[in-house]
C-alpha cells in the first residue's frame, strides 16, 4: 500500500513539466516518509530488491531536483544517503538505469570542485577508479568534472570556459554549476594576472577575463583594487621589495641564532 503511494509520488516528481519548487519539496518529504515507513531509507539485507530499486530512484530524483533548486546541502545529503545503495552488490538487485548513478556522482564531484575541496574530490575519484576499472573518462557525466579538474590544475582556463558553455555541458543539471565555475576561474585568472603582467590594456583584459564589456572590466578592476589609467590596467606592484628583504634578513638572523642556541642545548644534553 505504502509502496504504491510511493510510486505515485515518484511519478508526480518525475512528471514533465516539473512541478513548482514548493510542490517539489513537499512531494519529496512525503516520498521520504513513505520510505521510512517501508524502512527502506537505508538498505538492509532483508529489503526486497524491487523496493531497493524504488528507494534508489526516489533518492536519485531527490538529488537531481535539489540541484535544480540550487540547494547543494540537500544534494550532499541525498548523495550520502545514496552511497550505501551504490555499494550494494549488483546481484541483490538489477540496476535498470545505471545512468543516474554516474550523473549523480558526476554532479557531486562538480560540487566538490566548485567548493575547492580538491582532497574530497580525489578521495571520491579514487574510489570510483577502482570500481569502474578505469572507465572514468569514457563516462560522459563523470568524465566532465574529471576533465575540468585537470584543466583547472594545469591552468587551461580557456578550456574550462569552453566547457561551461551550453554545448559543453553534459546535462542541464550540470549547467547550474557553470556560473560558479566561471566566477572561480575569473578569480584565478585575476590573481595570476596580478603576478604575471606589469600592466594590461583593458581590451585584452576583457578577453582574458571572459567579460562581456569593457565597462565590466573596469568594475571588476575596481573590486580587485587595480588601477585603471589611460586604457590600461596597472596591477599593484609587489611594493617595497627592499623593505621586505631587510625584514627578512632580520627574521633570518633571529632564526639562525635560535637554531644555533638549540643545537648548543642539544649538544649539552648529549655530551
Amino acid at each position: 500500500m505504502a509502496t504504491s503511494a510511493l510510486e505515485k509520488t515518484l511519478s508526480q516528481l518525475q512528471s514533465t513539466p516539473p512541478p513548482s519548487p514548493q510542490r517539489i519539496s513537499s512531494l519529496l518529504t512525503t516520498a521520504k516518509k513513505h520510505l521510512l515507513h517501508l524502512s527502506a531509507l537505508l538498505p538492509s539485507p532483508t529489503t526486497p530488491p524491487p523496493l531497493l530499486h524504488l528507494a534508489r530512484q526516489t533518492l536519485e530524483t531527490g538529488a537531481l531536483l535539489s540541484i535544480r533548486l540550487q540547494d547543494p546541502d540537500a544534494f550532499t545529503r541525498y548523495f550520502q544517503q545514496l552511497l550505501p545503495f551504490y555499494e550494494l552488490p549488483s546481484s541483490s538487485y538489477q540496476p535498470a538505469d545505471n545512468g543516474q548513478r554516474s550523473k549523480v556522482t558526476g554532479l557531486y564531484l562538480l560540487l566538490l570542485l566548485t567548493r575547492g575541496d580538491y582532497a574530497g574530490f580525489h578521495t571520491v575519484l579514487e574510489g570510483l577508479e577502482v570500481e569502474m576499472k578505469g572507465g572514468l573518462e569514457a563516462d560522459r557525466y563523470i568524465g566532465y568534472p574529471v576533465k575540468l579538474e585537470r584543466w583547472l590544475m594545469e591552468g587551461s582556463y580557456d578550456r574550462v570556459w569552453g566547457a561551461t558553455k551550453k554545448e559543453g555541458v553534459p546535462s542541464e543539471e550540470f549547467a547550474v554549476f557553470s556560473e560558479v565555475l566561471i566566477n572561480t576561474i575569473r578569480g584565478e585568472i585575476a590573481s595570476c594576472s596580478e603576478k604575471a603582467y606589469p600592466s594590461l590594456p583593458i581590451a585584452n583584459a576583457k578577453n582574458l577575463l571572459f567579460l562581456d564589456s569593457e565597462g565590466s572590466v573596469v568594475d571588476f578592476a575596481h573590486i580587485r583594487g587595480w588601477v585603471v589609467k589611460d586604457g590600461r590596467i596597472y596591477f599593484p606592484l609587489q611594493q617595497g621589495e627592499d623593505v621586505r628583504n631587510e625584514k627578512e634578513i632580520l627574521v633570518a638572523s633571529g632564526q639562525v641564532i635560535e637554531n644555533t642556541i638549540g643545537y648548543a642545548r642539544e649538544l649539552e644534553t648529549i655530551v
Partner: protein
Amino acid sequence: MPGERRTLRSSKETPSSTNGEKTRSNSQSSSSNKDKPVPTRAPSSKSKALPKKASTKETTGDKPQTNGTEPVENGVNGTEDIDMVDDGPEKVKLGKEGDDEMTVVVPPPKGSKLSGEPGKDEEGDVTMDNAEAAEAGGPDADRVDPKVKAVADIKANFLLLERAVAQFDARFTLRVLRSISSVRKHLSPDLLAQLIIETYTSTSPIAKTLLAAIGKENASIESADDSLEMEIDGQTKDKTQAGKTSSSPKEILPEIDTYLSVLVQIYLYDARAIEVGAKFSSNLIERLRTLNRRTLDALSARVYFYYSLFFEQLAPLPPSPTASVVSIRPHLLAALRTSVLRKDQDTRATVTTLLLRNYLSTSHITQADLLISHSEFPPAASNNQIARYLYYLGRIRAIQLSYTEAHEHLIGATRKSPATPSAGGFYQAASKLLVVVELLMGDIPDRAIFRQPSLEHALQPYLSLVQAVRVGKIEGFLNVVQTHNALFRRDGTYTLILRLRQNVIKTGIRMMSLSYAKISLRDICLKLDLESEQSAEYIVAKAIRDGVIEASIDHEHGYMKSKDVGDVYATREPGEAFHERIRACLGLHDESVKAMRYPMNQHRLELKNAQEARERERELAKEIVEGEMDDDDAGGDFEGM
C-alpha cells in the same frame, strides 16, 4: 607474578603438590636447574637469562606469600609488573628471614642452581624434558631430518613462552615469533599433529580443533608415539618419558595454545587452504577475545594478522564492494577497542594497520582517514607495524593531496622497512609511492634510488616515468602512462600518476624559463604540445603565480620574459636545509636513547659496579698521591705524541 612466586614458594615447602597450576610452575623452576648439568644445552643467551629469573623469583618470593590469593591470570597483568620493581628495596629487608637466597641479589649462577633445587619435581617437567631430548638429538638428527629439528625448535619455543609468562618479559615471546620463519618451511600436517598430540591430552577440546583444522582428526596418541619412535631414534630413555608425560594430565598455557594455533594458521596459509584457514581463524579470535593476558599480546597480534590475510584472499576479492574483507571489519574494530582498553599495544598496532589496509583495499579512503583521526597509533609498536602504518598514512595523504605530509610518512616507511630480502615487497611498494609523491611535489627523485639492487627491476617503469616528467614533454609522459597502464593500476598509483600531467607542464615551463631569457608564447605552445596560445598564456601565468618560475608576460607582444635568477646561497634555503638535517640527526639520537632497554634489577648490578668504580677511583687517587712522578711521565708521553 605474585601467583607465580607464591606457588614456587609453597612447592618448596610441600614438594608433592597436586595442584595443576603449581605443577606447571614447578616444571619451570626445575627446568632452570636442569638446564645446567646437561652438556648439549640451549644457546648461551638462554642460560644467561636463567639465573636472573631464578633470582628474581626467589628474592621476591617472600612478600606476596601472605596475601596472594589471586589466580595466575590476574598475576600477569601489567600493573603487577611495576609492583615487582617497586618491591626491590623491601625485598632486601624481608630476605633476612633466614634464607640464604639473599645472596642472589646480583645474579650469580651458583645461587640460582642452589635455589632451584628444592623445587625439583619429577612429574612436572614435561615439556622441558621433551625439548631437551629433542635438542640433544638435534645435532645428530640435523643431518638426517630437518623435521626433527623443527619439532625441537618449536618445543624449545614452548619453554621460552613459559619463561615469558613466568618473568613477564615480552622479549622471549618476540624471540619465539622471530623463529617462525625458520620453522615455517618444515610445517606439515604430520609434524603439527605430532606436536599437538604430544602437548595436549587426548581429551583436550583445543587439541581437537587444532587437529581438525589440519585434517588429522583421527590421529591418536599411539600413532604419535609411533612417529616419535621413528624419528627420535636411540634416545629410548627420553622417548619413554616423553610418551609417558604426554598422556599425563597437565594444564597448557594459553600462550602455547596460541603459538600452536599460529603455526596451524601459517601451515594452512602456505597450503592455500584459505577457506579452512578463515574458518579456523574466526574461531580462534573468538577464543582469544575471552583471554586477557598481557603475555599473549604479541601472539594474538600475529593471529589477527593471519586472520585478516585469509579473508583478503577469499572470493570475492577486495576491489569489489562485497569483498569478504568487509565482513571482518566489525571484528577488527572490536579487537581494536578491546586492545585499547586492555592497553594491548601489539594487537592495537597490528589491528590498526590491518584496518587501514582493509579500508584501502576497497578504497574507502574517507573511512580510513576517519579511523586515523579517531584513533591513536601506539608509539611503542614494533618497527614493522610503524613502517606499515606510515605507508598507509602516506598513501591516504597522497590521495588527499597533502603531498608534504605524505612524503614525510613515506620517507619514514622506506627507512623503517626491514632490510631482509623477504620484506623487499614492502620496500618496493613504499618506494614506488614515494617516487610518485616526490614527482607530485615537483621534485625529481634521486637517480640512486633506482640503482638499488632490490628496486632496480621493480621500479623500471617508474624510472621511465621520472625521465618523462624531467624532460617536460607531455607526449612522452602520456606514452609512458599508456605503456605501463596495467602496472600502475596494479600498484594503485595510477590516479596519482594522472595528476602528474600538470607537473610535466610546469617542469617544461621551468626548463624554458631557465634556458631562454625571452620566449614567445607561440614557441611555448609548440614545445609543450599545447592547443592554443591562449592556453599557453594562462598556464604560464599560473606557473608564475604558483612560484614555479620567475618571469613576466608581455601580452601585447606575446612573449614571456624571465627574471634573473637570484643566488640561492643568498637566501635562507641552504640554512633551512642544514637545519632540517641537524634536526633529523638529533631526533635519531633521541630515539636511540629512548629505544635503549633497561633490564629489570640491572640497577643493582650497576650499583655494585659503581661501588667498584668508586673503589677503583679511590685506589687510583691514592696511587697518584703516592707517585707524583707519574704525572711527569704522562706529560712526556703527550709531548712525544
